[in-house]
């Protein structure tokens, strides 16, 4: 129930509206402005761009939300009810990841539609790797955002640490795939393991910090 609730919340948020409209628009703009793309189809370009942007947006949105809600005392009304405190952040984490990945997939599909319309070659297989990288980076960044949101009380510090900490952590984990030292599948598996560890620490810290 909490997950569904959070999903509705993020889906209706201004950030999501900007993401759903802004991400395809940004991609289109970059596609035309970027030099030397050669014959790269729009969908593949979108997938690469999205892998870089989605994690950053998702994690920043998540850490800011947690810091804001914690400092305003929103969770007080939840924790006096028969639910586990860790469920609150788990629901939030899943909701943000699902929302941002949905927006990313939508942007990629729009890219494919553009390629189809313009008669360019449509290569579904080429979208798989960037999409897996997007999932990996988004999961790690969001898990780090849960931890950061639970530790810091200042939104500004939270955002800075999320951008330079959470996303750097995600970049380090996926780096072997980008340098082709690891397969993308192995990197995704490693990323999910790192996500589970960081998320567990974040949820533990949240449990201790909220309302005390």
């Amino acid at each position, binding site marked *: *129930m*909490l997950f569904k*609730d959070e999903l509705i*919340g993020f889906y*209706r*948020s201004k950030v999501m509206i900007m993401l759903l409209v802004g991400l395809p628009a940004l991609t289109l703009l970059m596609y035309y402005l970027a030099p030397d793309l050669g014959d790269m189809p729009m969908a593949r370009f979108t997938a690469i761009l999205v892998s870089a942007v989605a994690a950053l947006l998702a994690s920043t949105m998540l850490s800011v939300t947690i810091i804001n*809600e914690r400092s*305003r*005392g*929103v969770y*007080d*009304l*939840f*924790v*006096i*009810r*028969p*639910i586990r405190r860790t469920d609150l952040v788990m629901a939030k984490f899943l909701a943000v990841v699902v929302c941002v990945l949905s927006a990313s997939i939508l942007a990629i599909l729009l890219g494919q539609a553009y390629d189809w319309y313009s008669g360019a070659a449509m290569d579904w297989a080429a979208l798989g790797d960037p999409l897996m990288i997007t999932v990996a980076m988004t999961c790690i960044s969001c898990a780090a955002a849960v931890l950061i949101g639970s530790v810091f009380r200042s939104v500004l510090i939270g955002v800075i640490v999320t951008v330079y900490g959470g996303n750097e952590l995600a970049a380090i984990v996926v780096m072997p795939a980008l340098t082709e030292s690891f397969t993308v599948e192995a990197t995704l598996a490693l990323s999910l393991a790192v996500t589970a560890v960081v998320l567990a620490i974040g949820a533990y810290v949240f449990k201790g910090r909220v*309302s*005390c």
Partner: protein
Amino acid sequence: MEAIEIRDLVKCYGANVAVDHVNMSIDEGEIYGLIGPNGAGKSTIIRALLGIMTYDRGAVRVAGVDLRARDARERVRIGYLPQQAAFQEWRTVESALIALGRLSGMDGTRLNTRIDEVLEQLGIEEYRKIRVGKLSGGTLQKLGLAQAIVHEPMVLIMDEPMAALDPSSRYQFKQVVREMRDAGTTVLFSSHILTDVEDLADKVGLLIQGMMRYSGPVSGLERLATMRSELVIELADDACKCGSLDIPGVDIHRPSSRIIVANIDDPERWDEITPCILESLVAAGCKVQGMSRTRPSLEDVYMKAVGGSQ
């Protein structure tokens, strides 16, 4: 049976003792007002009671259950209204009540009926579809009370609930709290608005510097502050000569020719001293037309008790 029981509660923030061996008990169906100056420890006690704050020593039970226990919240339905109720701003009034009602274990028709009831009780039906972020402070606080009572709690705990409300909203708020009490809910609230405490509370607790200076009926506070009671006697004519009246423990003065005021040092001796005063006046040839007793207000008592401690 005791709905709330606090035994020897101690909470420290570093070297600062915020709550110092506090004892308190509230019976089922009672309204208990917690008063005291800023920093006295009222909110700390409330948060310890709710199980959302750790404490260093003592025992806290709500309906016999320690709310820090794993399944405590399934066994005890609690309503909580913080000083400033905060909600996720994307929610509408209705969705906030649905979400918090469901998390409290309610669902379906019963929840919808209760939401209709509480919105009507608090006069905020028109805001049902409005986003929380667009509500005024007073309406937000009413929504706070709505979420606190929507699941028909056994115990309702409120921290400075009426501080941000206008007089008519405060009146409405008090009505709802009384209705909850009449339905069997035990209510604990803290407040700086002493007239509200006087209006609502069956019992009162006075906290000063983390210590419970008094816990009991509102009238008992007078004893703590040893304030005088005043007997105002109205005379039928100007002929009364009461200059010679001398009763131990009573100061008599005459602000006008037809009014005599007797200040009684010990309010406990009221029943014994009042007949003496009247007999003495009649013996002095005074014709008594009427009399009334003026008790010190809670504010007078509070100021004396708090002022004396600082």
